[in-house]
């Protein structure tokens, strides 16, 4: 069942369109992430669902009911904020009890439920402390407990891990995922961090300039981006201007360096069409002396610019004849040394890893 559904929801501020006729449906138990750069409309979307702002046009349904006109305190949602938004004048216990007190639940029920959720977030011992005595990660877990305790139909999260350092953020991602799986809570998560989105989501909604750019499972978005924006925003990509030479199953395209590249078949590949072709750096291989490169469909040569070791992976930057740069990424192994700048390099990759994308807009899905 759809817990939240937006129907052609738009939000305009004067001439500025923050959100343009967006349709979205989040089903029960799903973990959906709204991903996009700042100003793409993801926070607007969250605020529309929460009821903090009203849509200029369109409808919002929560739990099957039209909630477009429902005030925020009657929507029965939960929200986790980036700055935690715990009440500084209340103890942790009172913070978590707040939504139950508002609902006038009996005292013994409050007692048992609050200690239950504090156990769930592994913080049973902090009940009598004030929020400022807790670390950022602990505060955010309390904020989550405060949502879980009244069983809202969906929990909205506005960049909840944005204020935490990298290590803690990764821990919290796993923690959130665990709680989501254990309790089957529906979650709508806002982030601009693509890695976070890829790690946690059942489904990613990629937003760009107030519109949904692409929507789908993380691997679908990663492997089959439908636009240059999507390819660029999720993961790294090599993008080249290209002209289609041959359409169909044996699609080929020529790029400015003079190479002809074999690409995956695409509905937009018409002979002579100007397009972009895209390869993920991790699919571009450096062919060394004695390597068998016959399984690759595309081969180019260039001269090495530099290699950068990023812990587990190493990135090679290679200049092609027309001065364009292509990046190849390999796992760091002891045998794989950095390239000497200026050295000739052979690169190779497969046809299936070469996508054709439109110069502008997106492939209709």
């Amino acid at each position, binding site marked *: 069942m759809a817990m939240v559904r937006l129907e052609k929801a738009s939000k305009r501020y004067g001439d500025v369109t923050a959100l343009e006729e967006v349709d979205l449906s989040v089903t029960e138990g799903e973990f959906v992430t709204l991903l996009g750069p700042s100003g793409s409309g993801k926070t607007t979307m969250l605020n529309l669902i929460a009821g903090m702002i009203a849509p200029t046009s369109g409808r919002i349904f929560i739990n099957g009911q039209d909630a477009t006109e429902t005030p925020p305190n009657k929507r029965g949602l939960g929200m986790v904020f980036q700055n935690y*938004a715990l009440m500084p004048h209340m103890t942790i216990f009172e913070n978590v009890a707040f939504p139950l007190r508002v609902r006038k639940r009996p005292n013994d029920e409050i007692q048992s439920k609050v200690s239950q959720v504090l156990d769930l977030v592994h913080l049973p011992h902090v009940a009598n402390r004030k929020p400022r005595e807790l670390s950022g990660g602990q505060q955010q877990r309390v904020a989550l407990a405060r949502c879980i305790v009244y069983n809202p139909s969906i929990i909205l999260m506005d960049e909840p891990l944005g204020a935490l350092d990298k290590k803690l953020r990764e821990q919290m991602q796993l923690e959130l995922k665990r709680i989501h799986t254990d309790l089957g809570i529906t979650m709508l998560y806002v982030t601009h961090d693509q890695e976070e989105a890829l790690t946690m989501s059942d489904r990613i909604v990629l937003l760009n300039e107030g519109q949904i750019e692409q929507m789908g499972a993380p691997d679908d978005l990663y492997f089959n981006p439908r636009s240059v924006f999507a390819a660029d925003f999720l993961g790294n990509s090599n993008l080249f201007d290209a002209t289609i030479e041959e359409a169909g199953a044996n699609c080929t395209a020529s790029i400015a360096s003079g190479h002809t590249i074999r690409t995956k078949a695409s509905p937009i590949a018409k002979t002579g069409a100007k397009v972009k072709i895209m390869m993920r750096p991790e699919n571009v291989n450096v062919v060394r002396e004695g390597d068998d490169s016959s399984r690759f469909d595309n081969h180019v040569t260039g001269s090495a610019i530099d290699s950068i070791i990023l812990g587990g992976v190493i990135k090679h930057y290679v200049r092609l004849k027309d001065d364009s740069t292509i990046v190849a990424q390999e796992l760091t192994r002891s045998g794989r040394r950095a390239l000497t700048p200026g050295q000739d390099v052979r690169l190779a990759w497969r046809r299936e890893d070469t996508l054709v994308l439109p110069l502008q807009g997106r492939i209709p899905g």
Partner: protein
Amino acid sequence: MAAVERPVGSKYASSAMFLSAAAWFGYLFLLLPSFIVIPMSFGNVGEMVFPPKSFSTFLYKQFFFESNWMDVTWRSFRVASGATVASILLGVPAAYSIVRGNYPGKKYITMLLLSPILIPIIVIALGLYFYFASLGITGSEASLILGHSVYTTPFVIVTSMAGMRHVDQNLETAATIMGAGPFQTFFKVTLPLLRPAIFAGGLFAFLMSFDEVVIAYFIAKAGASTLPVKMFSSIQWEISPVLAAVSTFLTALSLVICLIGAMAQKKD
């Protein structure tokens, strides 16, 4: 090692010392007239001289037990308390509306609400006098409370506005999304967080009303005046030495209230 250690900027130390000495001298110069009445209040019965020639607590006895000074003091207490309550009841909602609200003309309404700070107090006093006279309530304690509220409310508004700006609006949003209505949000979230600011503003309002002369002088009936007005008229007509005891009492009261305020602030 210690011998070569020289704190950063130590060449400024001497000028800093000079500056602080100058500041202390300034404070003392300004405070001395207030403190001079303290030894005088323990002086003799008949005269007001400095330094006092003998020590006695007669003037305090007179102030607390053997005159109508205490009646007047209690009236001032009642008026100041009433004005404090009224300014909090008016000022806190006004500050909430100014900071959180979003409506046309807000800037002008703010200016209007704060205008008693800018208008000369004598003008306010005169206006209140005519206004209360036309209503026929001049001289009553209620009119004193009303008059002082006009004077003290802007200060409560200013401190509450400053307090409101420190209340994270996300907290109110969070409370709302968790199901709290506007009143629950205000009373359970906003108001408790605003308490230190309201407390400070209230203390300030109390002291201002307690010390206020001009408005009270215009409005109060003869024989039913407030403490500062009685002091003012008694220095004109009788120069009673008990004034020294009253002044000391007022100074001590202000000091105690300021200390309470400082302690409350530290606790938060």
